[in-house]
């Protein structure tokens, strides 16, 4: 049993609190991704689990051991760093076997494990090379190999792919997914990349300012966010938020020319403001009308994004697949697929369901 459980975990740097009582339960074998804006505490939380940052208060369990005050070395976790953190003076083989060697494992056992990891990661041909002689992707694979070799209960990844270029990133992403399938260990993964989070995670943890906003599977978060922050954070381009006014169980949206959308059960009283969330692919644009001005159209070939500005200055992004040519700067009419709209409280920003 080697899930990870955090109970009211708190981290303070001096007087500044950066992690505010996080409760989290990661099951054995689960792939958990932390996302959130920069500085929200993703890395800090991960490093607390690794034992690289002291936990100010609360408790951290790995499996059924309380490891809150245990040194990193004794937690039985492995970590893969953004910068790979390979020992530059050791060959790939030595890098991978270093941890075992230092803990006094016999030579042939080390060799066997290193070979096994190299096989999994297709690194057999590079075992004798120094990290300098490897490409970025290969280095990252070695870093992962180093983690695998020790057979830890928990793998920790801190933005492992963000130093790779776009193409390689895609490849490595696929490989990490495959690796998780193959060894089935618990993995905790920090990223700020939408796509990585969506494609890798069993469970995404959305953090904001040291607090958890929502936990759930990728499609859950995409389709059923708890609040405006999560809704805006997951999905690319981001969801558009329009002001709406409750009126008779419906929501009138001025930006859509006053169109009324069917609201959910829990709408507040008539006349109160709500926010209406609509993803770019659920908005449609037609030439003419006066709902908004088409500021810029970005054509990417298969798809185009229209950047609109409503008369109140709200900005909208609309995804368009067709080829109609609306001149930039002209006025347009906006319609929407009302069934896909989400509603949020204007002040608490909580989802209205």
């Amino acid at each position, binding site marked *: 049993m080697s899930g990870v459980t955090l109970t009211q975990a708190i981290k303070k740097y001096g007087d500044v609190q950066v992690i505010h009582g996080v409760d989290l339960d990661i099951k054995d074998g689960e792939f958990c991704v932390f996302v959130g804006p920069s500085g929200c505490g993703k890395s800090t939380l991960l490093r607390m689990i690794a034992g690289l940052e002291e936990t100010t208060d609360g408790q951290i369990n790995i499996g059924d051991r309380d490891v809150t005050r245990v040194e990193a070395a004794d937690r039985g976790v492995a970590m893969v760093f953004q910068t790979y953190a390979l020992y530059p003076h050791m060959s790939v083989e030595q890098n991978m076997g*270093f941890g075992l060697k*230092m803990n006094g494992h016999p030579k042939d056992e080390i060799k066997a494990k290193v070979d096994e990891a190299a096989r999994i990661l297709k690194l057999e041909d590079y075992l004798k090379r120094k990290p300098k002689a490897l490409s970025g992707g290969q280095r990252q694979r070695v870093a992962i190999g*180093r983690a695998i070799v020790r057979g830890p209960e928990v793998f920790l990844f801190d933005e492992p792919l963000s130093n790779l270029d776009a193409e390689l990133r895609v490849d490595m992403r696929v490989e990490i997914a495959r690796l998780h399938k193959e060894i089935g260990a618990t993995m905790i993964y920090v990223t700020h990349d939408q796509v990585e989070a969506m494609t890798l995670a069993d469970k995404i943890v959305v953090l904001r300012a040291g607090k958890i906003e929502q936990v759930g599977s990728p499609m859950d978060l995409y389709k059923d966010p708890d609040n405006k922050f999560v809704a805006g954070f997951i999905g690319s381009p981001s969801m558009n938020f329009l002001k709406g006014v409750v009126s008779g169980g419906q929501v009138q949206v001025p930006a859509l020319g006053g169109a009324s959308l069917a609201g959910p059960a829990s709408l507040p009283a008539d006349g109160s403001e709500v926010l209406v969330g609509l993803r770019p692919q659920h908005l449609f644009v037609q030439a003419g009308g006066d709902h908004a001005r088409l500021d810029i159209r970005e054509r990417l070939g298969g798809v185009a994004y229209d950047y609109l500005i409503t008369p109140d200055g709200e900005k909208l992004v609309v995804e368009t697949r067709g080829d109609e040519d609306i001149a930039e700067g002209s006025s347009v009419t906006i319609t929407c697929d009302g069934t896909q709209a989400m509603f949020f409280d204007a002040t608490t920003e909580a989802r209205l369901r």
Partner: protein
Amino acid sequence: MFPKPIEKSSRAAQLSYQGLLPIALLMWLAPLIAVALFSIKPDTDFTTGNYWGLPSAFGGFENYGKVFFQSDMPRYLMNSFLITVPTVIGAVALSCMTGFALGIYKFKSNLWIFFMFVAGNFVPFQILMVPVRDLTLDMGLYNTKTGLVLFHIAFQTGFCTLFMRNFIRALPYELIEAARVEGVAEWRIFWFVVLPLMKPAIAALSVLIFTFIWNDYFWAVVLTQGAESQPVTAGITSFNAQYRAAYHLMSAGSIVAALPPVAMFFLMQRHFIAGLTLGAVK
């Protein structure tokens, strides 16, 4: 690149630059060239007043022969090596450890201890003279190479620590964290992870300290006397006392004394300059 690369300017400018270089160099090194010239002149040139003309004959062998076989210079040279090499080893070893401690660990007094090393390194060493001389006398190490070496090690540790600590600071901290997560003991991290990475720093520091110590004169005068323990910088002065006004011999002696650090510089140039600019202090 500034100033503008000369290869981008006119042919004439390039040529005049190329011509100017050796002239400038000659002027810059004139005093040294003179000494080199002196050292291969036969002594008759000096009695006949031919100071600046070409040597009337090649007297190099004779002059250098005298330096090596008829004076204490070889002993002084030997002393210099026996003082310099252990100092380099000692100071580098100690500062690897202090640098590691100050560069890697976070503890309250870290910065203060570091600053103490730095400040101590900048102290005008004259203030140490009287007490250190006393101390050395009391320990019975006066006029021993050991006494000189011990002090040099201690004093250089200040500078070396500054250097090593900053170097270790610049290493990716993740390497240490990675090793810690892997369950590696601290001293093993030092030995197996950090030390191998410090090779360039160690090389740079070694050459630097080598020249510093080799060229030290003040402490040699304060803490030692006589050919049995004095280094060559002090030796050259008594050599000069011995061959007063024999400029050809004094020149030859000076050149012999200056040669090891110069050779060191040319062999290890890259490290040397790296050392200067990284630690950047004497």
